């Protein structure tokens, strides 16, 4: 079961600005909780996790903890922040996004020369920040690739070279697969109907102020 941003149930389409995700919490959080309560018997132990999965987590942890490269996490994180802020900000163009697509991969390559100085296992904030960076840089690669491929403006994605919304081509969710710095971009239809007949489907409208 997934709720919130992870579920992407088309309640708000591309627009997740402000506190719109509240509806995901309230409506789908409630629905998921009710369904979970039906399905799960109290006291049931968690399904056994396969050794391979556990080992994957430990391998990742150990690899990062023992990283002996020459680039500090803070340096790579700053490079990532600067790329995302200057090339993949709210207002974007083909040019900035293309530069971002290339630049963020250079930062991604920094994972190979990563250095974690603190090797301890108690309150190791150096390690935690590096694990965070490892998550974030993958997220950044996917974000900039998805934005580059979406040649329209929608919600917080404002392409100055494509100022209009293009429902013909892009009224769909981006699906992205991340394998290292390689990504595969695909799309999924947006739900255009409600679950009951109590309310009608609201078609998207232009945002005007």
């Amino acid at each position, binding site marked *: 079961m997934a709720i919130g941003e992870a579920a992407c149930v088309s309640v708000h389409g591309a627009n997740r600005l402000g506190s719109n995700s509240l509806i995901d919490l309230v409506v789908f959080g409630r629905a998921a909780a009710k369904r979970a309560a039906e399905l799960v018997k109290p006291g049931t132990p968690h399904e056994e996790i396969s050794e391979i999965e556990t080992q994957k987590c430990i391998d990742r942890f150990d690899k990062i903890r023992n990283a002996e490269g020459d680039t*500090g996490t*803070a340096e790579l994180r700053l490079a990532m922040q600067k790329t995302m802020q200057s090339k993949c900000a709210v207002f974007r163009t083909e040019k900035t996004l293309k530069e971002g697509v290339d630049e963020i991969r250079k930062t991604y390559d920094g994972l190979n020369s990563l250095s974690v100085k603190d090797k*301890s296992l*108690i*309150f190791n904030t*150096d390690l935690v920040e590096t694990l965070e960076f490892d998550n974030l840089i993958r997220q950044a690669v996917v974000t900039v690739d998805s934005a580059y491929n979406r040649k329209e403006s929608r919600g917080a994605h404002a392409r100055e070279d494509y100022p209009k919304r293009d429902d013909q081509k892009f009224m769909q969710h981006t699906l992205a697969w991340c394998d290292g710095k390689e990504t595969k971009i695909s799309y999924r239809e947006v739900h255009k109907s409600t679950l009951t007949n109590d309310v009608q489907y609201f078609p998207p409208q232009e945002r005007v102020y």
Partner: protein
Amino acid sequence: MVQINLPENSQVKKGKYFEDKTGSKNLRKVNVYRWDPSTGENPRIDTYEVDMDNCPSKVLDILNKIKNEIDPTIAYRRSCAHGVCGSCAMNMGGKNGLACTTPHAEIDGDIDIYPLPHLKVKKDLIGDLDGLYKQYQSIEPWLKSKSESKTQEIIQSKEDRAKLDGAYECIMCACCSTSCPSYWWNGDKYLGPAVLLQAYRWIVDSRDEERQARLKKVADELKLYRCHTILNCTSACPKGLNPAKAIAEIKKMLATANI
């Protein structure tokens, strides 16, 4: 003779010295308490030369600069960086406060940064707050209402709401409790200013129906009356609150009410 020295393994030694590598003319020395429980070594004071020409105004900025540019092994809590979350409470220049709201310009000479006083240290600047959270839990910091109705809101007048001002703003950073000598001495039993301020916050809430029980619960020689109005708490509070006054109010209620 009673031994009053610190045990051998608690004595703070001189640590590493990190010389400036930027060539800056505007340097400040920052002395930071370091301790890593996994090494078996004594605590030490590491000294960092920090380029102040490229450092924003708060003590937290100095720590971030050290962690990002000089020594990533240094450990401290921080989150919001805006004086709202209370994570970066520590002792700077001999005074408790939030690193994110304390300007380093207000500290003369070398900048000494220690964990909050008298807490068990987990690592470097990170104090163990488990005891404080247990005490917080003990005052049951939630609204208690016997009323049957669960669908209607409980109305509160503006005057009654105003009674919570100065109490609800507390962010539980522990600057006050860890500045209190009485809490240093009896921290296991005395609730301390932070928790008592919260106890007060629920005692005076007009919507709460267990005021009497709450008062009775704190009316204890150790839990409440270890406050000797030293007022370090009020002077330490980074949010400008007055825990000492709240404690005095509780004492006054107990002295004047029939419980």
